[in-house]
């Protein structure tokens, strides 16, 4: 067990170091600052006091960049290893395919969630400085659920990295993420409105697809709605873990059958 944990820790650590070595996070933070700083001094019609537009834009950037980082990190997990053949010495050591898969996943997840934590701390500081409200409970809840979003997205990216090329993986995962965030809530209404073949397709997506919109608390954070019940939070987090486990199981099957 100790050996397994040490192996997982070593594999996971590589992904975290890789993210911070590439300085993606710094670029993203600087870009966010460039976009948000001019808006901080914006007074429409000479009236100061509006802040929700900026909070919404900041959270939109957090979601956009976290999805890009999560997908970028997870889609680069295996293809470079196969191309440069560095996967052979890894598997030649007593590291099983399952351990390698889980270690890579945990590394990508740790890297993505650490970047996410940086974004939320920056957002909390921004809101605190502008509005005097410092790290409310709803923000912590939003972070927890957003981490659940990263759990699923990273698992999807990892599954795709074993089956598709990096470009195809990024495209497919990007479409799934954007599609579910925009249309996931409206699927029941769309199903009811469609004729038979389309209805079945949408119903299949509704039941099987990853409901990433469950993890999106931006509406509540921006518009000062009360926080969600903690029971619902736990249920949604459990959904994330189950869905990611299913994706990892499928990835394990693909990896075991893959001829290296």
């Amino acid at each position, binding site marked *: 067990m100790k050996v397994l944990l040490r192996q997982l820790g070593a594999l996971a650590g590589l992904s975290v170091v890789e993210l911070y070595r590439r300085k993606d996070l710094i670029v993203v933070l600087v870009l966010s600052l460039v976009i948000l700083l001019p808006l901080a001094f*914006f007074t*429409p*019609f*000479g*009236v*100061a*006091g*509006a*802040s*929700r*537009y900026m909070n919404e834009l900041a959270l939109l950037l957090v979601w956009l960049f976290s999805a890009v980082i999560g997908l970028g990190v997870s889609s680069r997990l295996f293809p470079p290893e196969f191309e440069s053949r560095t996967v052979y010495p890894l598997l030649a050591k007593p590291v099983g395919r399952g351990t390698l898969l889980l270690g890579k996943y945990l590394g990508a997840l740790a890297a993505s969630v650490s970047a996410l934590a940086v974004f939320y701390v920056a957002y909390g500081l921004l809101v605190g400085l502008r509005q005097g409200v410092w790290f409310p409970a709803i923000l912590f809840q939003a972070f927890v659920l957003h981490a659940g979003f990263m759990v699923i997205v990273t698992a999807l990216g990892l599954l795709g990295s074993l089956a598709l090329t990096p470009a195809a993986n990024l495209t497919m995962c990007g479409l799934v993420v954007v599609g579910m965030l925009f249309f*996931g*809530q*409206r699927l*029941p*209404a769309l199903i*009811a409105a469609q004729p038979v073949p389309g209805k079945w397709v949408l119903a299949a997506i*509704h*039941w099987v697809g990853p*409901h990433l*919109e*469950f993890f*999106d*608390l931006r*509406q*509540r954070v*921006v*518009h000062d*709605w009360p926080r*969600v*019940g903690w029971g*619902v939070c736990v*249920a*949604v987090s459990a*959904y994330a873990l189950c869905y990611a486990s299913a994706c990892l199981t499928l990835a394990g099957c693909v990896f075991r059958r893959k001829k290296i």
Partner: protein
Amino acid sequence: MREKLHICICVLCVLLAVTLGRGVPLLFSEGMPQAPGEDVLHLILGDARQELSAAMLEKAEEYFHGGLRDVDCEYGLESCEGHDHEAHDHEAHGHEGHAGEEGAAAKARDPWAWVDRRIHAQEHRHLEGNQSVELLPWIWAACRAAPQNVQAFQTGSYVLAKMAGRPEEGVRLLEEGVRANPNDAELSFSLGELLLNTLKDAARAEPCFISAFEKCRPADGPDGDEARLLKVRTLFYLGYLAKRRGDLARVRACLAEAEAVSPGHASVRGLRKLLEK
């Protein structure tokens, strides 16, 4: 040697491009595809500016309803004219957002819909008082994206004057809208109403109503119904202001014109009452 040749050709091409770029608009000023004086937004977006402006107004509507979209509510920003925010009981109606369209039985069988209803707010609420400043960035964007969007200026002036308690800023916005849309009667009418009813400035209001009356040319048939309605309301205000000055002849002229446009309208009855007093 080849490198020097490449550099010379490159420099010559750049000089030619710059010369043509400066010279062609001067030589063919009347034949250029885009109209002079257009700003960058118009050049890039063209007619899509109207769509962008409409999207910004929808965003303001969403903010008004606490972040919910497609809300079935009679008290939206677009129906703000005539809506008294102070008198309206916001606790009295609790319409649901778009999730409320599904059948109860379907909702009960669908665990995903159950989770979604608990994550995302379902019952909307309205922004009031000082909170209304949150709408201003989107209304500002709607006005700048398409200055021809009359609705944006009217909504903005209502938010500024009635909700945020800044009527002078509302007046300035409407004046800007009138400058951008010199042939639009609605904006002139709205400006006159704001000056008269909120700022109690009859001297500044009357020229606005006169301008609105001159711009208002109703089309024949049902297409001109809205313009006729605006005209008769304008005539009422002109008659009211004339009455304040003691100019009864002017009031009678307004009444005669209003009766010719829409004899059954409440404004016509209002003008008759002014004459009776």
